[in-house]
């Protein structure tokens, strides 16, 4: 169009763009949590890990000038928090959900405390790859400025799917999650498997956090996560512990987050609170549709404290 507007096309484009822009943290946290939960443990602390990851990535990127160092620092921070969770949970009679909630508060609190001096400075951001070169519509070009972390996340989902099914360590994680007795009988330490699975989960969540602060929205502040970590943990449950479903669910959540603002921008203004709540309504709807009182959730690892 002559005035540079694309009219109602904004809505599908924004949902598509939103799926790409907003979904990455969901994707990394949910894939990480998928690994952790498949090993038989729930780490609810990933909200805190996400925020700590975002803060440490921003801090390291600001201090070193290299955003990639920031991403690595976020991953290491996440892995350390994961190790902390797994370490506490390996003590006898410790409830992993309670530890998770404690670590969620600890992670966010620590990130806010350490992140105070980082709110004002501007850190180096992760670069975007321009996949919209073929289009002369600036809106499409903007929507297709994709960060490589998103591509890694997308590639990671089928890799994990394949790894759970066909590799040795995939089988080990699943064994620890389905029957810790069987794993023990095979001579493996369940605690060691879960420690590694939780650390990998934390590592991925930390990287998800680095996306928030270093790419989109692209700065550190205390409202940055607004509950995305905890949403992603819930997302694993309705993705049925399946990495591929985690991918689709993350994309759907990203798109849903863009729906409210996009509809308002084209003039659909009534009930925007409802559209803003779209991701949560989506969660509820899927949970209601898929749950059944007659059986446990299909795909749920048998060792999880919520299914046991």
């Amino acid at each position, binding site marked *: 169009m002559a*005035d*540079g*507007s*694309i009219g109602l096309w*904004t809505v599908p*484009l*924004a949902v598509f*763009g*939103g799926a790409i*822009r*907003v979904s990455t943290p969901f994707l990394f946290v949910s894939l990480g949590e998928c690994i952790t939960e498949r090993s038989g443990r729930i780490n609810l602390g990933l*909200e805190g890990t996400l925020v700590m990851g975002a803060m440490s990535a921003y801090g390291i990127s600001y201090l070193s000038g290299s955003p990639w160092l920031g991403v690595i620092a976020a991953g290491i921070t996440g892995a350390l928090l994961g190790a902390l969770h797994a370490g506490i949970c390996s003590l006898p009679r410790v409830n992993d959900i309670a530890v998770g909630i404690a670590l969620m*508060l600890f992670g*966010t*609190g620590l990130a*806010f*405390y350490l992140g*105070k001096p980082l*709110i*004002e400075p*501007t850190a180096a951001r992760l670069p975007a790859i321009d996949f919209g070169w073929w289009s002369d519509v600036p*809106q499409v070009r*903007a929507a297709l400025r994709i960060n490589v972390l998103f591509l890694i996340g997308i590639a990671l989902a089928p890799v994990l799917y394949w790894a759970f099914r066909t590799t040795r360590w995939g089988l080990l994680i699943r064994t620890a999650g389905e029957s810790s007795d069987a794993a023990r009988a095979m001579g493996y330490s369940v605690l060691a498997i879960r420690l590694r699975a939780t650390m990998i989960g934390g590592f991925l969540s930390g990287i998800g956090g680095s996306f928030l602060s270093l790419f*989109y*929205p*692209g*700065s550190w*502040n*205390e*409202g*940055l996560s*607004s*509950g*995305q970590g*905890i949403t992603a943990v819930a997302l694993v449950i309705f993705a049925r512990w399946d990495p591929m479903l985690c991918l689709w669910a993350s994309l759907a959540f990203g798109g849903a*987050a*863009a729906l*409210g*603002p*996009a509809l*308002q*921008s*084209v*003039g659909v*203004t*009534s009930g*925007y*609170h409802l559209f*803003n709540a779209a991701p949560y309504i989506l969660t509820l709807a899927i949970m209601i549709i898929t749950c059944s009182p007659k059986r446990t959730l299909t795909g749920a690892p048998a060792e999880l404290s919520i299914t046991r």
Partner: protein
Amino acid sequence: MEFGRISRRHLLQGGAALTLGSAFGAGGARAADTTIGFIYVGSRDDYGYNQAHAQGAAALKKIAGLKVVEEEKVPETDAVEKTIESMINLDGASLLFPTSFGYYNPHMIKMAKKFPKLRFEHCGGLWSDTDPKNAGSYFGYIDEAQYISGIVAGYTSKSGKIGFVAAKPIPQVLRNINAFALGAKLANPKTTTQVIFTGDWSMPVKEAEATNSLIDQGVDVLTCHVDGPKTMVENAARRGAMVCGYHVNQSPLAPKAYLTGAEWNWEALYPKFVKMIAAGEAIPNFYRGGLKEGVVKTSPYGEAVSAEARKHADEIKAKFLSTEGYSIFKGGLMNNKGKTVIAAGTDRGQKDPELEKMDYLVKGVLGATS
């Protein structure tokens, strides 16, 4: 999620209360100096609303004999009452600034009744005769600065479409949107202002999405009314759009894209309040001021602002500063549903309390309040 309730301060205060309480008795912790308490709803370095107040508090810290205590991230619930009580009982605060809109009624009113000898100053509240005399509300007519920003935005926009990322449709926000839109129309009568409400004061992902959606619609100048404008400013500048700031000067974040902005000037007002108290003068319970009174100010113009825009904006600014003043909201004003909201011939001056109950968007604004 709100984790602010269990802050480090609370813990420290708990410990201090035990030791001091036993050593000196209840009043022992009070110093002879005046202690002033500041309460913020968010983080005090958010490049926005709370930072503006914290800059005001910082100005007080420089004055000898004053002690400033601060607590941030206090929700607009009875949590603020607890904070006020602890500031009074533990820190000996005698003047309190609960700075967030939702603190006023019923929380601060309740505290003002409970501590009739202390002074409470609320930012944004509507003090009325039935409220306690030791409570007061102050606010700035920041819509004057928004009007100036709107003029600059109207001249700068090539598409004639301006975007406004707003938090909630409450009167203060609506007044800013309307003033901004009217200023833009003064510069270019064909300008439309598209508003998107994100639903809350700090929603970075929604704010970024709103910014992108607006730019996708052809908007090329944006402003906002959220607690932390950093997200909007940075994301808009990345997409090549121009921005007008809010709360504090955000030009360091986007030096090329920053046109001007509406800023609070609390670092001038708070020391003034303290001087009034020290001199024994009463602060009016209902205190308001705009550009003329120095309660608000505009950011210096950015390099992208044309000479024409500067001239027009400076002219209007001079009118605000003059003794006659200037009215933004004048008769014959229609809302964006086609209804007349200010009848022809009526001139709502800036001090008119009707304006603080604004519940409409003026003609030229695309969007709805509900």
